[in-house]
C-alpha cells in the first residue's frame, strides 16, 4: 500500500494555572501534618468509619456529622507496583515503587512511595510506616514515603 502523505499540522499547547482549595477537611489535615507531623482523619458518627484522607462529609451516609481523630502513621499495604524506568525512559537497576497504604483503623488510603525495600520484600497486607520530611510544608509530600514496619 502506498504511504499516505500527511497533511500539514500546527503545534499547540494549553497551559492554564489553577489554585485549588484543599477544603475545610484538607486544611485541618495539612495543618496538623505540617505543624505536628500528625495524620488526622474524620470519623463519621453514623457509620463509624474513619476517613483518611479526611472529608467533612461521609460519602456513604451523606451527612456532615464527623469528628476529628488522630490516626497512627502506620498501616497496611493494600497493594503495590514497581517500575524500572527513569524519567528519561532509561532502565534502572533499583526500581521505584508506589503502594496504597490504609492507615490503622481507617477507611480510605494514601497512594505513596514505598522505599527502604525491594519488590520481593513486599507482601500485600504487610505493616508499613510513614517517614516524614524533617521540615514539613503542609502538603502530601511531607510524608516522604512508607517503609516496611515491625508488627
Amino acid at each position: 500500500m502506498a504511504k499516505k502523505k500527511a497533511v500539514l499540522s500546527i503545534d499547540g499547547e494549553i497551559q492554564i494555572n489553577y489554585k485549588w482549595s484543599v477544603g475545610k477537611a484538607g486544611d485541618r489535615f495539612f495543618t496538623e501534618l505540617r505543624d505536628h507531623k500528625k495524620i488526622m482523619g474524620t470519623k463519621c458518627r453514623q457509620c463509624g468509619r474513619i476517613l483518611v484522607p479526611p472529608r467533612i462529609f461521609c460519602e456513604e451516609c451523606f451527612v456532615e456529622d464527623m469528628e476529628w481523630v488522630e490516626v497512627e502513621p502506620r498501616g497496611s499495604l493494600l497493594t503495590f507496583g514497581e517500575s524500572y524506568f527513569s524519567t528519561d525512559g532509561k532502565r534502572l537497576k533499583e526500581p521505584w515503587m508506589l503502594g496504597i497504604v490504609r492507615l490503622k483503623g481507617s477507611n480510605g488510603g494514601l497512594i505513596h512511595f514505598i522505599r527502604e525495600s525491594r519488590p520481593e520484600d513486599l507482601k500485600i497486607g504487610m505493616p508499613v510506616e510513614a517517614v516524614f520530611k524533617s521540615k514539613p510544608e503542609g502538603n502530601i509530600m511531607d510524608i516522604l514515603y512508607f517503609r516496611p514496619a515491625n508488627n
Partner: protein
Amino acid sequence: MNDRVCVVGIGVVEAKDPMVDVSHKEMLFYATRHALDDAGLERKDIGSAITTSFDFLEGRSLSNQFTLDSIGGVMKPCDLRLGEDGIYSLFAGYMEVMSDPSQVVVVASVQKASERDPDGLSYQKLIADSMEPVFSRPVCKSVPNLLGLEPVLAAMEARAFMDRTGLSEEDLAEVAVKNLNMDKGTKGSGPDKKTVLKSDMLSWPIRTMTKAKEADAACAIILASENRAKDLQNEPVFVSGIGWCSDKSHLAFREQGVSRETKWAARQAYKMAGIRRPDREIDLAEVSDWYAHRELLHCEALGLCGSDEIKGCVADKSFQKEGRLPVNVSGGLLGRGNAVGTSGLIRVAQIVRQIRGQANGFQVPGVGVGLAHSWGGIPTATAGVAVLSKW
C-alpha cells in the same frame, strides 16, 4: 397524566466573593445536602445522579468523576455529562425520570472560578483555546493582550445586534442597572445609569459593569415523577418543557447578533409545554445576561418580545420586576455573578423559588409559568431552555 417530571428539591450555594473556606467538592456536597433536605430525602432514596462540569474550567481531567461522591452518587448509575452548562443535567435527569418514573434523580453542577489563576488571564486563555484551532485560534492567540480577547469578541456580536435593532449604549446600561439593583434587594440602592456608563470601557460597548463577573457557585436539583412526588413534602414544580440546540461550530460562520440556538431550543420547549404565545403565557423569565446586550438578545430569541419591540421594552420597563414580563428579578448573572457552567441550573432553581413563592425579596406575585434559559458563552452557540410551571 401522571408521568410528568417535577422538581421536588433545590439546593444552591453561591457567593460573589471567592468561597475561600471550602473546596468545590465541599460546596457541591452542601448544595446536594440542602436539596435532599428540601425534598425530605436521603442518599438511599437517590436512583441516579448526574453532574455537568468542564475539565479545563476546573483543572481536573474527568472532573465529574471526581465530584460524584459529593452528589450522593457512589455506587449509583451516574450519567456524567461533560462540557455543557448545568441546565443540561436537568435535561438528562428529565430523561432518566421518564425512563424509570419510580426513581429520584439528582442533577448538579459546581463551579469555582476563584481557583483559576489569579492574574485573570486563565479564562481568556480558555476562550482562545475554545476557538476553532486551525483558522481562528492562531489569530486569537496572537492578540497583543489576551485580557482584551473576550471583550472584543463580545463587542463584535453586541455591535451587530445593536446595529440591527437600533439599541443604544444607554439601553444596555438600563439592563445593567436593573439587574445590579435587583441584587441589592431594594430598588435604587445599587449603581445608577451614570455609574454604569462611567465604568471602564473594555471594548465598545462592553464595560466592566455590563459584563457579568465570575463567581463561585454550586447547585443541585432533585427530580421525580408526578406519582413519586405525591409522597414527598414539597408541592412539586413541573418541568413542562425542555429544549436545547447548538448552532454552527465556527463562530465566523454564524449570523452575528442573533441567537438562533436559543430560538430553536425555545421552540422545542414551548411545543412540549403547549405554549403558543410565550410573551403572554410566561409570567417570569431568568435568561443569560452574561453581557447586558445578551439579556435583550435572548428575550428576542425566546419570543418574549418582537424584534421591533426590544427598544420599546427597555423604555417602558417591560422586563422590570413590576413590568409586563419580569426578567432576571434574581439579579441574573450581572447582579449575582456568573458561575460559568453552573449558572444555567441556578436559573432553574430561581424559577422554582418563584413558583413556590419562596423568593423572598425578589418574589413576583402569582408566578404560574416561568422560563429558565442558559447560554454557553463565547465562543459557543449553545442554548438550553426549560419551562417550569405550578400546574
